């Protein structure tokens, strides 16, 4: 039965979450993640450890796998409160992508070796899918793994592997046979395994988050395979679907909108706050409206997948089921770009100064003038040009929508 209301029990829950965060979130961590620069992975791991002590490090997992078992609205409240307080974002690769795959398809052995340390903040992940000649056409990838004894031996090249240099583990999509549907497998590899070389790619912001990963006779135990050999494409698709459900980037967009309003309130133009300029205020309001719609669409998507696993019929739209993943991806990605772009615009001349990421992380004052919020804004706006490219580019998603939703 349709019920669009929040549970009255949600309010005490919100207070509980808020009090916990206030008591346990380190202030310097909040300062780092409030600004647009990428928070270091070490912050994410430390915050995960703190949450784990309270049993909260996997807000979206079931209790039997070490999660919280929270309802959708509890998860949303937790995320709202974290954003509000400036907590670092949790490891989405682990929580929403590879984690659920291991839970669904991994062996008991794999689960017991990987999940507990992940929940304690001891594992951080990188995703090794893309290759120089396999981007949008991922199915054509060439990195190959062959079985030798108890191990797979892997050879090939991956590219754009975010955070590989800070990761403890990388999950790779590799070729173990011919074709796409039955020729790919998913393997977990120690990021420090012999033969695995990680080369930095400096990005448009002059920061290091991207890498090239070269695999030269890298060994990983067969026991580190997720699910069956040859089924990797199906797993990857499930994972990317899951990634896209989060691709509306609700937490990030919420935080970015709040920051945008703060900048606009602090920036004076002609002696008055930019926020009081009707033209500019209307631009922000338009983005807010898009956010409000997108946030509810995310709830619809999550509720549909919840009712799917419950075996009920649900989530219809005008009588038919909806593949929300691509819808969320397209507009979520575009909204991230529109908000960050408007943040840069709001900075005015201060959007022209280059602020150093290293100085920011070290907590040193930036050697250029500008409002306290300015560092990181431009950097984020530049980096997020990637939102419409990664996770399946928007062009690919639009084609998918035409096919899946409209049957074209």
């Amino acid at each position, binding site marked *: 039965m349709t019920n*669009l209301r929040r549970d009255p029990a949600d309010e005490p829950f919100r207070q509980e979450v808020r009090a916990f965060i206030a008591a346990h979130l380190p202030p310097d961590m909040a300062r780092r993640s409030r600004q647009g620069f990428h928070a270091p992975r070490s912050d994410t791991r430390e915050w995960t450890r703190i949450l784990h002590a309270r049993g909260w490090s996997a807000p979206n997992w079931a209790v039997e796998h070490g999660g919280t078992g929270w309802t959708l609205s509890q998860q949303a409240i937790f995320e709202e409160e974290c954003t509000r307080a400036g907590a670092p974002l949790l490891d989405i690769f682990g929580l929403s992508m590879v984690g659920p795959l291991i839970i669904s398809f991994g062996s008991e052995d794999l689960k017991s070796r990987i999940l507990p340390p992940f929940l304690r903040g001891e594992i951080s992940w990188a995703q090794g899918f893309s290759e120089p000649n396999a981007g949008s056409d991922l199915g054509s990838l060439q990195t190959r793994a062959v079985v030798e004894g108890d191990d797979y031996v892997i050879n090939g090249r991956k590219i754009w592997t975010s955070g590989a240099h800070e990761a403890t583990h990388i999950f790779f999509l590799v070729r173990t046979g011919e074709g796409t549907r039955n020729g790919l497998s998913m393997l977990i590899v120690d990021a420090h395994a012999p033969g695995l070389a990680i080369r930095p790619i400096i990005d448009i912001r002059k920061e290091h988050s991207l890498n090239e990963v070269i695999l030269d006779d890298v060994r990983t135990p067969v026991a580190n395979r997720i699910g069956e050999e040859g089924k990797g494409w199906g797993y990857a698709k499930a994972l990317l679907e899951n990634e896209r459900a989060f691709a509306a980037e609700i937490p990030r967009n919420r935080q970015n909108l709040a920051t945008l*309003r703060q900048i606009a309130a602090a920036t004076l133009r002609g002696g008055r706050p930019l926020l009081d300029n009707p033209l500019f205020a209307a631009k922000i309001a338009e983005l807010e409206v898009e956010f409000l719609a997108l946030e509810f669409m995310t709830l*619809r998507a999550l509720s549909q997948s919840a009712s799917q696993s419950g075996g009920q019929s*649900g989530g219809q739209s005008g009588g038919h089921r909806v593949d929300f993943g691509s819808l969320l991806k397209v507009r979520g990605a575009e909204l991230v770009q529109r908000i960050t772009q408007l943040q840069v615009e709001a900075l005015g001349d201060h959007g022209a100064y280059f602020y150093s990421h290293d100085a920011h992380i070290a907590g040193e004052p930036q050697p250029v003038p500008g409002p306290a919020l300015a560092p990181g804004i431009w950097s984020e706006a530049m980096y997020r040009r990637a939102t419409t490219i990664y996770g399946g580019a928007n062009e690919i998603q639009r084609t998918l929508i035409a096919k899946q939703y409209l049957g074209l």
Partner: protein
Amino acid sequence: MDFTLSEEQTLLADSARRYVEQTYAYEARRAAVATGEAFGAARWAQMADLGWLALAVPEARGGLGAGAVDFALLVEQLGAAMVLEPLVPVVAAARALLAAGADDALIAAVMEGHARPVIAHGDLSAPYAATAERHGAGWRVSGAASLVLGGAAATHYVIGAGTTAGLGLFLVPADWPGLGRRDVRLTDDSLGADLTFPALELPFEALITADGGAAWREGLAWLQMGLHAEALGAMDKALWTTRDYVRTRRQFGTELATFQAVQHSMADMVLEIELARSILLRLLSTFDGDSFDEASLDQTHAERDRMLAAAKVHFAKAGFYVGAQAVQLHGGMGLTDDYVIGMIFKRLVLLRNLHGGPGAALERLALEQRRGEHLAAGQRQMAQEAL
């Protein structure tokens, strides 16, 4: 939260869809317009028989007590056919009357289809369109209301008039002396009415409540929500009609549907529609059931007003995009008078610009956001000082 439709809800939507398919094809609508009548009396009686006029009336008042979500589901289907009957304006007026404590006989007459009250609001950004003063044993009410939807088919008008005590709600029969009504043809071929009443003399009992602010807002909220649900239905209709067209229309030796430019533009139509559905659901989540719980009323109403503005902005944008794109993808066919796509576009443009259009709603949101940011800044300041 649970977005799953119940069996009753699915049945309701299905029966409305069937009704529309069987009796309200676009040719039937054109024929109805050609009669010059504001609405079909026989169709109205059918709608009453189907229980649609009782849907949003609480069980305690003799209705079906189904609530806002069910109403929106029903109206979405009717919106796809752009029905001429004033279901949304009449139900909105009924909600205002219910909140104002109108008597059961009137509500019963609405549910049976005999009474068709509509709200005679003017500009939605003004608090009300009329003033009232005591006059002998009764009242004298003066004002005007233009572009009253369903106004040409109404049996009664609910007039909100400022009195020294607050906003009084008056119920006035459509044929009351001194009430000037001019039926006006709108761009979607429907009939509305412009009302002028420089000095209406009403008996004392015409006043339903002297403190009608909340009831007035309730009615207007239902009106706006209902029109959005209608727009959603119209957009959905435009989408699938266009999908079928591009699948069959051939150029360059193949179906239009095979061109990626066509596919991507249709994907954007899908996006606008599903976001519109999402924001409509978000708006519906702010409609209280029928318990008028005083404590939470103010807060939920503030949130409802905010979502009404947000929905207005999105529906204005989405409606125009979807309608215009449907015309574009039909080529010359989209420009003809006797094809449904052109009418859907005209209807969506009309709805977009109604009630102050997206501009007024954006302005409201922008003001609110400023207030909110000043509040948040104050809180940050306090937190800083506490450290």
